[in-house]
């Protein structure tokens, strides 16, 4: 298959107009010694039916895996509308007059994210939650006096890994981790208190990686002694029921909004979000859409605050980000519009209720969770590797093993329940434990 459209006659017209005799002459500016004369060793061309049979995804039925990437119901309208070519095949909206659809859609995404997080401003999206956290730390590191980035050990291990990657060459910046209480699974507040200071920027994940609800009032109080602090939300559905992060008055709220209308898709594309209050808006990374006027005074939208960005500021930019996750953000806007206030609350409470239902049933079987504090829709329990693999053979993804990231928790598995699970799923898991 090729997507070319020239006939032999067209080719002749093209060659004549350019003034060359053969198509290969168009490459005459490439030195002969650098030309590749072999044939690339690449399979194909393959027809569509063959491709469909060969490159097919074969998902397992159901399961209890989450850990930052969640299976939720996606209303059919999200795919139907987001797959319209006008959204799908457009570029970054550099020419606002013919990109108002993308721009208004992103403006509405920004509006809904700002309102759900309780912050004043959202950017147009980031690659994923982990890079959103890393960019937030970079932003903090540019503030005067910040010499340490503090993060809770209950923050998603991959997020902390990406953070280390991004910060490895930032001079005079120390990365500190705060341990958790092994009984509750919550961040150890005494350690946090000892660590905070005006020279530190602090980030806490809520609910944390173990699904545990952190004591945010106390953490917010301690955080006020830092130079900058932020909340990390890896499950955006929790925003449907939990206290708005903005109510704790953090400097930044970042995280992962894949749960809003984006499928799990083997782990990507994901959707990082980044929300701040207006005092930080000029330090914020990434694209942002603003409302404006056209020359006739009518409302219109365009990309704004470009003076922070790499194409203007080059090495002094707030970030190197250029593309974000535009289509995923649009899907989020569609999802939130389809859900509405009651719908999002229903999804959140179904997830939390389902997890409690499973926990109660486990306790009836004499299986105790590893941590005692309240949780949202995930919890950690022990499950030996053999049992987990036996369940895998039955087609049940029995959570995510986390002992590699937490050697102090051998055989620990993170179990997630969402509204996509059924009571039958839960029964199946319980019977085979």
């Amino acid at each position, binding site marked *: 298959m090729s997507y070319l459209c020239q006939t032999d006659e067209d080719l002749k017209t093209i060659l004549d107009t350019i003034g060359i005799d053969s198509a290969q002459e168009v490459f005459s500016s490439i030195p002969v010694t650098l030309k590749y004369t072999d044939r690339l060793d690449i399979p194909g061309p393959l027809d569509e039916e063959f491709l469909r049979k060969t490159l097919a995804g074969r998902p397992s039925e159901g399961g209890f895996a989450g850990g930052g990437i969640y299976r939720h119901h996606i209303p059919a309208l999200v795919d139907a509308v987001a797959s319209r070519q006008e959204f799908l095949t457009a570029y970054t909206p550099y020419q606002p007059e013919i990109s108002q659809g993308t721009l208004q859609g992103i403006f509405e995404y920004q509006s809904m994210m700002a309102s759900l997080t309780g912050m004043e401003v959202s950017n147009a999206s980031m690659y994923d939650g982990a890079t959103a956290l890393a960019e937030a730390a970079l932003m903090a590191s540019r503030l005067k006096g910040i010499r340490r980035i503090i993060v809770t050990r209950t923050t998603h291990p991959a997020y902390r890994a990406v953070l280390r990657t991004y910060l490895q060459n930032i001079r005079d910046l120390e990365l500190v981790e705060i341990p958790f209480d092994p009984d509750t699974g919550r961040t150890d507040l005494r350690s946090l208190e000892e660590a905070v200071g005006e020279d530190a920027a602090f980030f806490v994940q809520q609910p944390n990686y173990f699904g545990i609800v952190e004591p945010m009032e106390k953490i917010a109080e301690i955080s006020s002694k830092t130079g900058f602090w932020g909340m990390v939300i890896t499950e955006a559905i929790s925003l449907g029921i939990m206290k708005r992060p903005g109510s704790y008055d953090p400097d930044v709220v970042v995280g992962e909004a894949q749960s809003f209308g984006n499928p799990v898709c*083997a782990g990507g594309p994901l959707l990082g979000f980044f929300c701040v209050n207006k005092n930080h808006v000029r330090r914020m990374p990434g694209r942002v859409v603003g409302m404006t006027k056209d020359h006739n005074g009518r409302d219109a939208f365009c990309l704004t605050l470009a003076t922070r960005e790499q194409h203007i500021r080059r090495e002094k930019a707030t*970030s190197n980000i250029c593309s974000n996750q*535009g289509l995923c953000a649009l899907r989020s806007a569609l999802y939130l519009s389809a859900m509405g206030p009651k719908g999002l609350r229903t999804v959140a409470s179904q997830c939390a209720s389902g997890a409690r239902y499973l926990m109660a049933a486990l306790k009836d079987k004499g299986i105790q969770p590893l941590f005692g504090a309240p949780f949202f829709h995930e919890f950690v329990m022990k499950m030996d590797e053999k049992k987990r693999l036996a369940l895998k053979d039955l087609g049940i993804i029995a959570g995510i093993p986390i002992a590699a990231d937490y050697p102090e928790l051998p055989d620990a598995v993170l179990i997630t329940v969402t*509204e996509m699970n059924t009571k039958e799923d839960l029964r199946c898991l319980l019977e085979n434990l």
Partner: protein
Amino acid sequence: MPARESITCFPEIREPLLNTRSAQGKNTRVLPSPFDATDLGDLGPEESLPDLPDVSEVETVRHFTRLSRLNYGIDHGMYPLGSCTMKYNPKISEAIAGSFAAIHPADGNAMHEILEFCCLLEDCLKEICGMDACCLWPAAGAHGELTGMLVIKKAIALSGRKKNTVLIPDTAHGTNPASCAIAGFGTKSIPSGEQGYLTAEILKEHLNEDIAALMITNPNTLGIFEREIHDIAGLLHDNGAYLYMDGANLNALMGIARPGDMGVDCLHVNLHKTFGTPHGGGGPGSGPVMVRKELERFLPCPVITRDSREKYTLTWDRAHSIGMVHSCLGNMGVLIKALTYILSLGAEGLRNAATSACLNANYLKSRLSGYFDLPFSTPTLHEFVLSDLRQKDAGITTMDMAKTLMEFGFHPPTVYFPLVVSGAMMIEPTETESLDELERFAHAMETIAQMCLTRPEELHESPGTCPVDRVDEVWAARNLILTWGSFESNKGDMVSK
């Protein structure tokens, strides 16, 4: 105003903000509710419901469908944004990626097959680029640049050398210096030669002990092949420095010339450009990074390993790796689409695509060079740059011409970039445009050139037939209305302004 193009003109739609349609009780969606509601008091829940619009399904669908009609996409018509490679996005790629939507990354059985596809994609990309190793995880071109520069930084640090500066030609993308800064490098801009490409002579003047790498785009943003690249690589290597290539313009080279053969040590490619995956109005993209053997151990983790029994596993335990760059495995959906594209075309198809892309661009250059200033006469490949020099006397700028092109039903080229050309118009038609479409575009550009002489005032007023007239970007930056909340609270102010 020119006649509205009936094929690509826009409808007259004013779509209000979604929240203005909201009224309590409109949304009657029934959601999956497998569980009995339990007491969730231990979550310390928010009392009020989330503050979201309450609208019906029909209103949601109509709102966003109407918004979509205010957009211009590749399926509308030609989208000649230079260095963005806006080629046709095959529908089969979307269909195939769809079958992966429900796979959770913890789904071991399904992921094993996906890792096999990833290995195949790595092999294809390495073959096309002539490189030794590949990491698929960076989520965009700029993310790939950052990853590549972190790899180079780590290699230099491990060798115990002190090299802190990256040279970047003045034709480079703005992301290049920004990526270097995060990787801990200083940057220095160096001029391209008079012919529009970097010469070994110029490089020599700037080479010293402190130089860690040169970051070059090839073909560069003028569409010109960096013909001295092999000598340049030699000079850098002799100086203990690396050659990084920004592969944004790889579309010109598939099957024609390979970065590895040019002496490139590290590069990223943009799957959403060269390999036909959709841009989605600004992402998700994908920017895999490739390196030479000696840099392989620094690539991000996890790494896919394939054993002799065709078993694929992810390995995190890599002593010299720069670490993770993504919370999972990158934009997998985009990777699958790119693999579909590559296999659809095959070796010959890729080579033909590169050839046609260059022919189409040169055809347009020949058609337009009689009407517009062509600042560099050096041969070009897949794109070329014009300037507004010949229209300036009539008081017409590149911006005026770009906005007028919309009236003819075209997306404008990339404008005011590269910075080395004043009033640049960077045109990249790609291989998927027919001769008819190229002619239609050439005709529009010629008409605009004539209008500059006869009716220049009309160009200042354009566009007049788009969903909005020319947009005031300064107003946006001054007033900073970034959410509908701030729109509501600013309403009074706005009227008085």
